[in-house]
């Protein structure tokens, strides 16, 4: 038989990020196992190469280099945080690798070697705000986030967006907290008083990871219910909820491109496979897992289409590849290396699942460069010939500098 196709899996299995990333590693193993059971790709088996970057950002780069240079993997699926992706980026560009990144992020990036299968801000944040405004009549906004780049950027985009829509400065409250913040008493109290000004108020939360549990607990204890001040979160999924007593949270919202509760046969099959793979009836699925599902299938399709695992061939072949997602739609790889996704708004239920209350009529294509940031509204990304540029400035008609070096 031919050499197997080596699939690098670059997710933290220890340290603070393990909590989120281990499931993604397992997802990849499951997908690979299944693909191999179906005979692999092009008659070649797939072989997973798992490494542990241990939630340590420089280690992500080192491991990526190891995967590409020593293990000579054909493709890498990995990373969760933006900082880890930023750390890996120069390495995959230098060594011309392929990276599938499965998590929602702040956008403002488009690399020839990276495929962004998670949501860009226009695939999550903006539709969620639209929903709150149009369906719930929200007029006052609390933008609460963990103090790092993803929330900062998202909030900046949302702030511009809201102001463009005529929301006054006084109706926007922005609050940042450190990672792992666990004492939300005074912030929740502030939100409460901000919300008692007579206008419908909502919280847009980009609070990350572990800080959420104490946040929601405090909301519950201070009696802030979803009917008073709903919270819509961008980083709280089924996995996070599985560690929370959801009773006080019922009715709060989240915006994602996938929910485990979506009523769809493909989804049910995926869940069944996952439960079986984990051997745990209670195992949950979530949005980044779906992103890996899509990314993996896209890669497989692209390999079939190109007839090779050659990186440059894949890069050309994959644009336009369309595979079904788990919510009944189709995900297509766009020329800017982002994909099309439906946007779903779900309300938290007492069983730790989301019930979908709203969704976009059709899928939305990911936008690498936000239209609501002054520095990037003129930029577009298109990796097809002849443009082949991740940051083409439509005003100046020039491609930004990074591409030149990348192709050096």
């Amino acid at each position, binding site marked *: 038989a031919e050499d197997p196709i080596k699939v690098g899996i670059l997710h933290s299995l*220890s340290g*603070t990020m*393990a*909590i989120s990333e*281990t499931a993604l590693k397992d997802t990849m193993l499951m997908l690979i196992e299944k693909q191999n059971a179906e005979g692999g790709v092009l008659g070649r088996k797939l072989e997973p190469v798992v490494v542990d970057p241990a939630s340590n950002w420089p280690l992500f780069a080192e491991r990526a280099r190891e995967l590409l240079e020593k293990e000579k993997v054909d493709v890498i699926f990995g990373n969760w945080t933006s900082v880890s992706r930023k750390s890996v980026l120069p390495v995959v560009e230098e060594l011309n690798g392929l990276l599938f990144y499965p998590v929602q992020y702040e956008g403002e990036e488009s690399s020839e070697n990276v495929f962004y299968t998670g949501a860009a801000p226009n695939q999550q944040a903006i539709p969620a705000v639209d929903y709150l405004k149009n*369906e*719930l009549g929200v007029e006052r906004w609390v933008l609460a986030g963990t103090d790092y780049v993803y929330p900062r950027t998202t909030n900046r985009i949302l702030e511009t967006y809201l102001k463009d829509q005529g929301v006054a400065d006084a109706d926007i409250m922005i*609050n940042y*907290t*450190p990672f*792992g*913040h*666990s*004492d939300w*008493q*005074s*912030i929740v*109290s*502030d939100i*409460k*008083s901000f*919300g*008692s*000004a*007579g206008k419908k108020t909502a919280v847009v939360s980009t609070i990350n990871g*572990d800080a959420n*549990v*104490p946040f929601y*607990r405090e909301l*519950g*204890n*201070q*009696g802030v219910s*979803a*009917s008073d001040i*709903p919270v819509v979160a961008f980083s709280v999924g089924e996995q*996070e909820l*599985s*560690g*929370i*007593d959801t*009773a*006080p949270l*019922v*009715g709060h919202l989240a915006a994602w491109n996938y929910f485990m*509760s979506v*009523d769809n046969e493909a989804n*049910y099959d995926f869940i*069944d496979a996952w439960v079986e793979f984990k051997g745990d*009836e*209670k195992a949950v699925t979530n949005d980044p897992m779906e992103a890996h599902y899509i990314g993996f299938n896209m890669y497989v399709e692209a390999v079939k289409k190109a007839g090779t695992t050659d990186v440059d061939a894949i890069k050309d072949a994959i644009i336009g590849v369309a595979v079904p997602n788990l919510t009944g739609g189709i995900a297509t790889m766009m020329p800017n290396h982002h994909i099309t996704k439906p946007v779903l708004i779900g*309300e938290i*239920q*007492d*069983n*730790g*699942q989301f*019930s*979908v*209350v709203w969704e976009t009529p059709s899928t939305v294509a990911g936008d690498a460069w936000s239209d609501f940031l002054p520095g990037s509204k003129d930029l577009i990304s298109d990796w097809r010939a002849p443009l082949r540029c991740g940051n083409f400035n439509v005003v100046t008609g020039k491609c930004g500098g990074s591409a030149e070096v990348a192709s050096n």
Partner: protein
Amino acid sequence: MSIFRLLAGLALAWCLALGPAVATAQVQDDTAQTLLQRLAEASNAEKSKVLKQIAESGDERARGWLEAFAGGRLATVKSSGYVVLVTSNTGRNWQVASAVTGDSMGEMSRRDLDSIRVNNALRSQVEGILSVVDLSVADHRTRRAAARHLLGRVDTVTAPLIEERLEVEDNDRVRELLANALAIHQLEQGDINAIEQLSGSLNSRVRAALNNAASSDDPAIAAAAEKALASIEQKLKLNKAAETLYFGLSLGSVLVLAAIGLAITFGVMGVINMAHGELIMLGAYTTWGMQQLFPGQPGLALILSIPAGFMVAALAGIIIERSVIQHLKGRPLETLLATFGISLILQQLVRTVISPLNRTVVTPEWMSGSIMINEALSLTLNRLYVIGFALVVFAGLMLIMRRTRLGLEVRAVTQNRAMARSMGIKATKVDIMTFALGSGVAGLAGVALSQITNVGPNLGQNYIIDSFMVVVFGGVGNLWGTLVAGLTLGTINQVLEPWAGAVLAKIMVLVMIILFIQKRPRGLFPQKGRAAEG
């Protein structure tokens, strides 16, 4: 609003119909089925109409249907369209019962069921209906909650009902709330006199109404509302200060709890115990474990976790002491190294054996929510318990260290081990007991923290640094110092936070600690004199 008005009016009829003296109406089962089925198929706007009809039906099962609907527990069977009540909705297979008859229908695959979607607006409607109903139940607490719910939700249809209710209501607080609810409605109607009724209230909905009135076109109303707001603002300030203090004490007591075990193992024994955080984590996981053992009885499980958490952590402490720390006598700095290793091992152990994910620890009923001191000041119950718990643990430890022989012996052993042994003190035993005590107390902290924060493998990491800060800030070896330091740091943090933001507040507290140590190089309560210099 209009939907609500209609519904509320209809609800009145229904509420009267539900009165115990009146014979209850019951619709035909197949009519009920059709009604529910229509609910399932309707769009959101239509759903509210169906809800209205259900309320209107006067069926005694209606309340159950409405509650199930609001809780997202109504579903249809895909193949037949039959509406069922989901009694358990975790996992891939759900327990269902007939919505109409209530008979159990066993387990069904999720694939075969279609949940009837509900959203906040609909849920809010249902709550509104139920509130009006609840106004006439016997329990005054339920009535109070219902009345509070009605604040800002009264309209022309419900207003007369409320007025009527107000006549017969005998509970003062309920009366006050109902009067405010009415007044808000009247204010919305442009009645300037309503402002007087509202000007004393601290309730946030009242304030919202006044805020709206303040931007009214009628200058008289606007001015009156402004005035009322100003007087409320004044009262709020005081409450705000009290609230900040409470937040501070509460954060402080968390710090004290986290640090107090360390004050023993580190402060008294001199072991730089980097695994302290993981011992806390063990306590928290014990709580989770107990709740698994006693499903459905989170309160009992929590209470049992107190001794259990202590024992588990103490046992872990004993194992650590016996296997590692006893070999490091007289090399305190190296305990840092070894316990750091232990902390890595314990974290990974939890990840491997239990899960890298956080675990759900349920807050028992009696610990959720808050006690309302007044409409603007409520004390969250879980925090209140934690404050009390911290003080009790502290007092207990103080008693042990001051009043028992163990306390004396520990200090003797740490100050001069060889001499203590020459005096007949069984140093090994003392070491074990002390370390077990410190570890056990860490376990207790974990039990308490499980009610506040994540129970996960990283729990310990989040508290270890704070714990060391508190112990050192208070003065190593001084339990009082730990108490005062914890409460002080907590309060300062909460005072700074609204003003500087959470991140800067934290930085400022750290800088303050650094500067404070310059002023008092041995903490708040230093050991003074020759003795300290050794």
